[in-house]
């Protein structure tokens, strides 16, 4: 290794967005140390500025000629840029939502923001990590900060319980993931870069070995835990119910997006040799997630648990795009995640606002809310209907695109199950909307009867309102004015060499297959 020319080889400019986030994090931390608790007035805005600055920096990296940096550790391709943007944006909106919530719970805001931003950094590095060690360290940065955030309300026993459950299950799953990764390292003869692993495994003639399959299963177990796919979802309802609500918002969007990009990168680039197997496993996971997530959501009485199960179901929908593996499939997956970002965060902003004013998140307590707070009712209804996929909201177009891409690729069963479970999901989303809107004045719940007058001037309420309005507008307009988002999703797939090469090999394989046997059954 020549250390004189190392600086040029590192190509460190690609991690400028992460650098901005880390610097902001340190500024917030040191500012809080110097000024004390009164820094709460400006630290959240510094954090948001830093996160938005990171997004701007990402924008300027869109046409990067040489995305590989740190000698192959990090790959700042278009795919990673979109996902890093999603993660940073979800963190920025989460900061907006959390200001009032954290203040009111009597815990310190600056540390909360610092840990949240560390989780963001972990997720962003995970989105671009192209090497096993980087992947694992980034994954742990994301996970450990998530455990800390989950247990942040330490005087609330439910938060403690959630943190403990999350920690134990998360540690187990990350150990399993690490075992699978170590098998990959061994099978490829001591190689950690994802792009080289497959060639090495093929060159070493171990591609038919049971070891590759076991590595695949273990890696999928780790990833499925992050995206909360059934049957690795057991932690989700309890953790979502017990954690501070802004944290849940981040976990359900940012952390999940990081899990998806990890899935894409690892499965597509390191496991093409067992691609049939991983498609089969993921199909099973997607079917189970869609069915179980949406059916169990029907029986929930707590709003946060409802959203937890709904997010399990939504993960199932997104997995369709990953499984079919066509250009439209990847693009629809990214598009759906972009839309899901806004509608899910909007839903959680409403839940936070309601629980701040009434101190509860039971669904029955929402009854008659329309007469006391029309804005909140409107926002929550729009977000829930969008999650359910009612036209002309953003979620409808997201699902349409996903199902269309799935149908084109011949994944009929997945699409049919997706459609059916979407109908089921509409039922439970509408139930909440009906509860809020239709009820007469005498059917109002106790909490709504005592509902305080809307006072947006209290400290920290303004940002919450901003996040509510932003997500509301984005959810209602992203469907109709979806062209920029479509262009973004399609462009990111087109510009990513990894996905393009996998598409090419898939196409040649398909041609070979159709030449060999004309009557191959359509893939599930």
């Amino acid at each position, binding site marked *: 290794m020549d*250390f004189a020319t190392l600086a040029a080889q590192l190509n460190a400019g690609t991690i400028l967005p992460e650098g901005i986030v880390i610097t902001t994090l340190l500024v917030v931390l040191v500012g809080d*140390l110097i000024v004390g608790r009164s820094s709460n007035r400006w630290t959240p805005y510094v954090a948001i500025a830093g996160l938005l600055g990171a997004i701007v920096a990402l924008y300027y990296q869109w046409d990067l000629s040489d995305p590989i940096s740190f000698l192959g550790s990090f790959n700042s391709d278009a795919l990673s840029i979109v996902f890093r943007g999603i993660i940073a944006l979800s963190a920025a909106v989460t900061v907006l939502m959390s200001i009032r919530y954290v203040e009111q719970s009597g815990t310190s805001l600056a540390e909360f923001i610092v840990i949240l931003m560390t989780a963001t950094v972990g997720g962003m590095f995970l989105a671009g990590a192209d090497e096993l060690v980087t992947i694992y360290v980034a994954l742990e940065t994301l996970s450990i900060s998530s455990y800390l955030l989950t247990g942040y309300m330490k005087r609330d026993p439910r938060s403690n319980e959630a943190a403990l459950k999350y920690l134990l299950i998360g540690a187990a799953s990350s150990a399993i993931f690490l075992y699978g990764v170590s098998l990959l390292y061994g099978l490829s003869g001591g190689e950690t870069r994802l792009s080289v692993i497959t060639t090495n495994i093929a060159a070493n003639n171990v591609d038919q070995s049971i070891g590759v399959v076991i590595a695949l299963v273990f890696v999928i177990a780790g990833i499925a835990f992050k995206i909360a796919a059934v049957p690795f979802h057991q932690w989700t309802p309890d953790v979502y119910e017990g954690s501070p609500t802004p944290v849940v918002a981040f976990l359900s969007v940012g952390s999940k997006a990081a899990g998806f990009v990890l899935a894409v990168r690892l499965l597509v680039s390191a496991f093409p040799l067992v691609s049939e197997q991983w498609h089969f496993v993921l199909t099973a996971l997607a079917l189970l997630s869609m069915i179980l997530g949406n059916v169990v959501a029907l029986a929930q009485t707590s709003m946060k648990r409802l959203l937890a199960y709904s997010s399990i179901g939504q993960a199932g929908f997104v997995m369709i795009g990953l499984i079919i593996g066509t250009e439209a499939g990847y693009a629809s997956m990214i598009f759906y995640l972009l839309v899901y970002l806004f509608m899910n965060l909007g839903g959680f902003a409403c839940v936070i606002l309601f629980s701040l004013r009434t101190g509860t998140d039971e669904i029955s307590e929402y009854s008659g809310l329309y007469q006391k707070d029309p804005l909140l009712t409107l926002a929550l209804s729009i977000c829930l209907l969008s999650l359910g996929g009612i036209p002309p909201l953003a979620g409808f177009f997201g699902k349409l695109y996903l199902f269309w891409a799935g149908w084109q690729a011949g994944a009929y069963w997945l699409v049919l199950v997706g459609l059916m479970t979407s109908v089921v999901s509409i039922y439970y989303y509408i139930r909440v909307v009906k509860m809020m809107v239709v009820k007469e004045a005498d059917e109002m719940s106790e909490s709504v009867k005592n509902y305080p007058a809307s006072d947006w001037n209290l400290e920290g309420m303004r940002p919450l309102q901003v996040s509510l309005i932003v997500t509301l507008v984005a959810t209602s307009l992203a469907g109709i004015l979806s062209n920029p988002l479509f262009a973004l999703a399609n462009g990111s797939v087109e510009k990513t060499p990894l996905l393009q090469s996998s598409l090419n090999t898939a196409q040649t394989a398909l041609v070979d297959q159709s030449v060999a046997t004309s009557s191959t059954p359509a893939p599930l």
Partner: protein
Amino acid sequence: MFVLSGYEYFLGFLLICGLVPVLALGASQILRPKRSGVERRTTYESGMEPIGAAWIQFNIRYYMFSLVFVIFDVETVFLYPWAVAFSKLGLLAFIEALIFIAILVVGLVYAWRKGALEWS
């Protein structure tokens, strides 16, 4: 194939260390008179009569200190190879290590300001 050097002495010491308690206890087992009585179970010559069980509740301060210790222990392990390979690394690695240390110094300042290093 075992190539590390210097472990012969380690092995020798390990054997000697293992033998010391075995020999001491074994010898006394053979040589000592075998009698039992109430006196024999009491604390020998000096020291207090033990009260209660050995399993007592520790102070949470110990926990805080060991938490902080774990973090800086890991940091030491990370920096040790840097120190050993320093002469081969050059200026760039020095800057990189400085970034590493700077980020952790912020952590140290944080711990200090929040009173995690004080025995109060």
